[in-house]
């Protein structure tokens, strides 16, 4: 979707605000919502692409106004309701519905180090045809999906060069909607800064993006 989250190249967002000796969490609730998200993800009811897309669906003015961890709170609540782990009434009341069954946590403290150390690789060990080769010139497709995509607007229609083949990775556009992982080759693609931004950019500079097969076409 052409949302405000896709902000590469925008002007008018103000100066960068740098904080010295910044704490990991600014308030205890930030740490709690961070941890709640990680713990609830262990139920495997959604995936990282669905999580990102849920945040992207926050109306633009609200998305810009609220903080990073407020967006996490929003996404967690919406995904828990959508997947049936809680009801909206329970969230509003702060109490389980009467007679609702009590579950056993999917993640225990003892399992935390193992879960974090293992992570969730997005690569898939399957054979898939690589349609592009390192060094080849490609064009990012000029498409405007209304759902989740990791193809930023600033690169659509632009010419780039395949820099590296990362192998086969889960495709976010379908995975976010639970329509399947659709694994395909993921490439690092180099775009000259002037191809993206015109003559105002330095002739030496470049932007590299990771792009799936379905985002690319032959030039």
């Amino acid at each position, binding site marked *: 979707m052409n949302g405000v*989250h*896709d*902000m*590469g190249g925008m002007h008018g*967002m*103000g100066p*960068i*605000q*740098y*904080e*010295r*000796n*910044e*704490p*990991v*969490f600014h*308030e205890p*609730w930030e740490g*709690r*919502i*961070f*941890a*709640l998200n990680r*713990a609830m993800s262990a*139920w495997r009811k959604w995936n990282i692409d669905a999580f*990102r897309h849920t945040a992207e669906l926050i109306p633009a003015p609200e998305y810009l106004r609220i903080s*990073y961890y407020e967006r996490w*709170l929003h996404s*967690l609540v919406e995904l828990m309701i959508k997947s049936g*782990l809680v009801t909206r009434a*329970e969230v509003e009341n702060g*109490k*389980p519905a009467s007679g609702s069954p009590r*579950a*056993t946590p*999917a993640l*225990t403290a003892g399992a*935390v*180090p193992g*879960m974090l*150390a*293992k*992570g*969730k*690789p*997005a690569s898939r060990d399957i054979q898939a045809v690589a349609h592009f080769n390192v060094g080849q010139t490609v064009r990012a497709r000029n498409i405007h999906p209304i759902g989740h995509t990791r193809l*930023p607007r600033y690169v659509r229609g632009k010419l780039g060069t395949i820099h590296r083949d*990362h192998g086969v*990775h889960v495709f976010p556009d379908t995975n976010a909607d639970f329509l399947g992982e659709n694994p395909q080759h*993921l490439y*690092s693609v180099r775009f000259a800064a002037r191809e*993206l931004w015109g003559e105002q*950019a330095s002739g*030496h*500079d*470049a*932007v*590299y993006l*990771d792009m*799936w097969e379905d985002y690319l076409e032959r030039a």
Partner: protein
Amino acid sequence: MKADTHDLPQEKEHVHGHQTVPSDLALRVKALESLLVEKGLVDLAALDALIDTYEHKIGPRNGARVVARAWIDPAYKERLLTDASAAIGELGYTGAQGEHMIVVENGPKVHNLVVCTLCSCYPWPVLGLPPVWYKSAPYRSRAVIDPRGVLREFGLELPEHVEIRVWDSTAEVRYLVLPERPAGSEKLSEEELAGLVTRDAMIGVAKVNLPQPGANL
């Protein structure tokens, strides 16, 4: 981590919790946590373990150790640049948000800068959780269109002949910058070198500098 010594834009010092009345957000999160605990969906001890891990165990000191090792051990550096996930794993840093690592090397002719324009992707096992500015609209919007202007705001002016490579983390691949080893650091130990390496240098918005004369390492 050493405090960065460069002049930075719009600086502010963090003031620790003087808030006495819980905010609406704090109350909402507390209510949600109570609900999820009561429903048996989350374990309180697991939440505490997660917070403790990212507050105390995983952070930019990890990445600094990787960089220092690469500076003193050419064979390690070679492995780091060819298979970063495995080489970083040798030091015990693996997993969530670092499953697919790539290390990009700075040099006299090339400077690398990492951003995530679409959200806030960041290599957690080596840098911890991202700072607010990295997640903010000003950085996300400008890093790709005006990297030289952004670096200037961080106090880093690069000559025109240096090629700037901006890495927009659009997939699950995570990027770590291997900064240039500062001249004059030949006699420092691996541990002393690691003490010089800042988070900002590993994102690519700063260089690694020797401490000012008179400062203790």
